[in-house]
């Protein structure tokens, strides 16, 4: 038993020596981080009919993007009026490369919730069933889309009730809000990617834009969000955007250290342990 314990001690020591350089290899590499801006579009033209967002399908200066779904009913999934279908819109694409391979997940996928009553964009009653629809749609139009989980996006989380695999539009809009643009920083790692919000721009019809940083957004209350989102002509604040890229990179890098220790260190530990045991068995003449 003592020999096994001492062997494990050596294994752990070797694993730490092996994994520590890997874990710190990419620490704070500013050139890995990109600023990417995507646009969350929604249009006011049909808002008067509904309680929730309606997404525009018109062209804009951002180039190719998936068009949005149809109007959604006044009661989300309830009553006699059912939701038809709706989707997120993303414009552009994020050229993420992991291990020399373009990350298909990030550059070719969209997160949606699609419940279709009638035809153009056939879906099903099951949330997330429409991913195939979007992919086909994307292929038809040669568009690319991205998938982003908004767990770190307090603004979008407030604006759109986010589920684990789709989005639900059930918050009413004010009359003036046209667009929310979220600027993010992206950092790629061997195992995964990290997208962190940096700033938000709220654009209103006939009103000055409001720009807040991600840090400011974290301190905002629900009432603050309501003031930004349900704007009917009153803008509460305007701030200059501060791209805290270096802070984002540092915080991302520190988290990734632990991730690397687990995903690299554990297999190394296991493999080395097995090798040592095998060698010991051979010596003992198994």
């Amino acid at each position, binding site marked *: 038993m003592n020999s096994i314990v001492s062997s494990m001690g050596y294994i752990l020591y070797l694993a730490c020596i092996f994994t520590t350089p890997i874990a710190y290899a990419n620490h704070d590499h500013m050139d890995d981080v990109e600023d990417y801006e995507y646009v969350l579009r929604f249009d006011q033209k049909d808002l008067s009919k509904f309680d929730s967002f309606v997404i525009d399908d018109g062209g804009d200066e951002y180039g190719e993007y998936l068009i949005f779904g149809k109007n959604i009913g006044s009661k989300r999934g309830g009553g006699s009026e059912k939701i038809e279908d709706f989707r997120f819109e993303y414009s552009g694409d994020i050229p993420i490369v992991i291990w020399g391979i373009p990350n298909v997940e990030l550059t070719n996928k969209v997160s949606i919730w699609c419940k279709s009553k009638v035809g153009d964009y056939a879906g099903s009653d099951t949330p997330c069933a429409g*991913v195939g629809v979007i992919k086909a749609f994307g292929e038809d139009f040669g568009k690319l889309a991205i998938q982003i989980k908004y767990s770190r996006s307090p603004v979008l989380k407030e604006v759109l009730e986010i589920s684990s695999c789709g989005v639900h539009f059930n918050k009413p809009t004010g009359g003036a809000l046209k667009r929310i643009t979220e600027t993010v920083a992206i950092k790629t790692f061997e195992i995964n990617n990290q997208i962190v919000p940096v700033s938000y721009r709220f654009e209103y019809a006939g009103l000055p834009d409001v720009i807040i940083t991600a840090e400011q957004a974290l301190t905002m209350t629900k009432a603050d969000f309501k003031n930004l989102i349900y704007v009917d002509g009153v803008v509460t604040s305007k701030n200059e955007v501060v791209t805290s890229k270096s802070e984002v990179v540092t915080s991302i890098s520190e988290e990734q250290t632990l991730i690397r220790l687990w995903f690299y260190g554990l297999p190394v530990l296991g493999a080395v342990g097995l090798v040592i045991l095998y060698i010991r068995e051979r010596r003992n003449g198994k």
Partner: protein
Amino acid sequence: MESSWYMLHAALESFAITICAEGAVLVLLFSEFRRIKSILIFLLINMFTHPIYFVTRHHFFPHEHWLTGAALLEPIVFVIEALAYTVFLPIKWPKAIFASFLANATSLAVGLVPSLML
């Protein structure tokens, strides 16, 4: 794309389920695994295979494709583990294969239950 902490949390949860489910099956059903050394080997094997399996499945078979990934990767994992049991333990290879298959099937089933209930 999930945050890093979410992914680590998911990996830890998955690893814990694997260790508990597979360990229970092996210890309860196979006398060869009722020794400290056998348990240690079981742990080392899973420390080696599980993170690789998790990252590979998560990266190349995300979201709605995870079952495809599991179907492709689980047999590889079960063969590797069966091989390791044959090498390190006093167990014949047919029994090692059966034990590994049963253990991995159990852990996969346990992992599937939450998904099916959603």
